């Protein structure tokens, strides 16, 4: 018996129109029949491009959105049918870490108040004194100083804020934590820290995670089992290594082929599958197999009429494709789509899910490979951000100078030398100042 079981979960949002009285004119099929099992102490990774319903699925597990149909069973209790007050009390066992670290913290509450909120709601701890002790021990676990208690969210960095978000989930001692894009809003270097923290906590506390992400490298690094979503349903589910070794669904194949290989020789010979067309609207999903409109192997009759179920093709590898075996054996010819050398110019502009293509990085031992496309993207994005931050940074560095001259921090001294050459204009003088401070 798995800890968390989803069976045929559907979340349909009504589309309403009307001047005086709202009429329902249709539905957005955000999540359309998903069944999966999450084992205790394991991590289930959910990947998919934006708009495929992965966030909605995560929220439906916590009943933050109403479940239209199906059941979410946690440890024998069906959450989908729990009445309001019982559900509220049950939330203690099921927590969430949000994508936007700043947005998910109330700007007008200090950290102590933010972290006490859940304990007060569930009657944990006799008085504030007892709660404060508990909060301090949790802060220590997530690597924050205990003087953070009286400070406010805007006084922390992105990584620290996400640690606060994780601490908020942890104070309730939940069984399952849903991480909705836990690192996508963070700097690349901070991403690795937060991911490692999540892994350490899992080991220490025996937590079960559902990690939602669009970054294949992050998901691969942290997950035991991975589910690939497309337009509101699972198209493939397999143990992490098996999925990356041999993707069986055409959509997964296309996704994986968008990941550059860090070996230039392999990369030169690698082929990349380009999908044609856009993601169909979830308000009007295609008939039959949801993917048949873009599938390079789509067959005339069956794919557009019969919706494939997830079926086990051996070794816990589940695929929702009628022709998975034939495609794997190479006996089925491609009907549409384009296969190009991975290094062809302009490939980045291909209509394959941009978000995924951009954010996809092969797994590395440490922090993600810097030379890859991801780092480049991150750099351009950062440059824009930097221009804004530059002023604040100057001020901050001056403060740092003061502080550091009083007491030289060892940690900062060990940081690698920043390279000023590539720095964007307003930032150019900055690293020097920082150096002086050290």
């Amino acid at each position, binding site marked *: 018996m798995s800890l968390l079981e989803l069976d045929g979960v559907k979340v349909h949002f009504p589309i309403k129109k009307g001047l005086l009285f709202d009429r329902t004119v249709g539905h957005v099929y955000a999540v359309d029949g998903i069944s999966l099992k999450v084992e205790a102490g394991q991590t289930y990774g959910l990947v998919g491009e934006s708009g495929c319903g992965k966030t909605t699925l995560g929220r439906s597990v916590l009943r933050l959105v109403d479940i239209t149909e199906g059941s979410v069973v946690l440890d024998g209790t069906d959450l989908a049918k729990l009445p309001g007050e019982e559900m*509220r009390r049950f939330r203690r066992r099921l927590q969430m870490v949000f994508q936007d670290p700043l947005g998910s913290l*109330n700007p007008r509450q200090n950290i102590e108040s933010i972290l006490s*909120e859940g304990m007060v709601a569930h009657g944990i701890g006799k008085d504030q004194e007892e709660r404060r002790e508990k909060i301090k021990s949790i802060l220590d676990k997530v690597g924050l100083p205990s003087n953070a208690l009286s400070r406010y969210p805007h006084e922390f960095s992105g990584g620290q804020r996400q640690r606060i978000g994780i601490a*908020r989930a942890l104070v309730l001692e939940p069984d399952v934590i849903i991480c909705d894009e836990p690192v996508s809003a963070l700097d690349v270097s901070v991403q690795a820290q937060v991911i490692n923290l999540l892994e350490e906590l899992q080991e220490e506390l025996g937590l079960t995670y559902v990690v939602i992400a669009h970054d294949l490298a992050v998901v691969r690094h942290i997950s035991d089992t991975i589910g690939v979503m497309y337009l509101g349903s699972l198209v493939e589910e397999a143990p992490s290594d098996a999925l990356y070794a041999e993707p069986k669904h055409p959509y997964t194949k296309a996704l994986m082929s968008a990941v550059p290989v860090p070996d230039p020789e392999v990369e030169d010979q690698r082929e990349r599958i380009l999908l044609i067309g856009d993601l169909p609207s979830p308000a009007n999903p295609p008939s039959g197999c949801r993917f048949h409109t873009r599938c390079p192997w789509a067959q005339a009759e069956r794919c557009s009429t019969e919706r494939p179920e997830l079926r086990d093709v051996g070794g816990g590898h589940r695929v929702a494709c009628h022709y998975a075996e034939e495609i794997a054996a190479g006996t089925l010819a491609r009907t549409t789509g384009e296969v190009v050398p991975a290094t062809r110019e302009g490939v980045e502009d291909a209509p394959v899910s941009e978000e995924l293509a951009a954010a996809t990085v092969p797994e590395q031992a440490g922090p993600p490979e810097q030379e890859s496309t991801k780092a480049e993207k*991150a750099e351009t994005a950062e440059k824009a951000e930097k221009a804004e931050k530059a002023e604040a940074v100057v001020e901050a560095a001056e403060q*740092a100078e003061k502080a550091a001259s009083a007491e030289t921090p060892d940690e900062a001294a060990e940081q690698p030398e920043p390279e000023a050459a590539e720095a964007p204009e307003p930032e150019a003088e900055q690293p020097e100042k920082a150096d002086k401070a050290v």
Partner: protein
Amino acid sequence: MSVATKTDKIQRLAELAATKETSTGASLWREAFRRLKRSKMAIIGAVVIALFVVLAIVGPYVAPYSPTAQTWRNEVFPNRGEFVGARGENWFGLDHLGRDLFSRMLVGARQTLLVGVVATLIGLIIGFVIGGLAGAFATLGGDTGRRVDSVIMRFIDIMLAMPSLLLAVSIAAVMGQSLTTVMIAVGVVQIPVFARLLRGSMLAQGSADYVLAAKSLGVRKRRIVLSQIVPNSLSPVIVQATLSLATAIIEAAALSYLGLGNPDPAIPEWGVMLTQAQRFFDNAPMMAVYPAVGIIITALGFTLLGEAMREALDPKLRG
């Protein structure tokens, strides 16, 4: 490679500095107040308001003469167009009944402030309750809540559809002529403004991630509204209240001008004084200028402070 590492390093240094500098933490309210103190506009506005308030408190005690005694009634002849302007004895001159205008201005400040503050409070409190309820139902009440919200807001729309002065005049007409009527009339006109503002602000906050986070923590709905949504929705309402004080004073003056104010013309109030002065504007324009300038300066003070507060409380300017 370099950019990411550098950001990280600078960030760490900045964090380090921040940790050493403030260990107590600065709430957003405190930061806003600090910004407010730096704004020239706010200082000027606050000084004007402070003077006005002091005037309202001590005015009656420092007035050189009685504001109601027609001490010099033998020196002014409105029928013949003979008035007395500013002179050593009477700094602002005399009004049409031979009363000292300077004393009347000083004493009238209290009434004027009272009308502005009470009217704004009426609008603020009732509008806050209505808007807060609508906002709470709309954000956390589900489908039924949204329906309750629609009903409340249609009611507010009806109020808003009527021209404010017309609404105030009809209220004053129904309730009869008195200072209380003016306050209520001006206050009621402000209700929909505050209600809509708070509700809109709450709706925007209601879909924020931290509200979702509170929900997923299992925090009770009432507490989500009171400790999460409302404190974050207050800024525009506070700003509006400051700006409304200026409007309320002017509208109260307008109602008094139309003759719907205090029926006892003996009690000085700037709006009433302005009304009385208009009949003699040809011969004694200064009689109208004093209360008019008084109203303008006061309204300006509140407007300046309000605008400065809007800037200080704007989260986009934080940093």
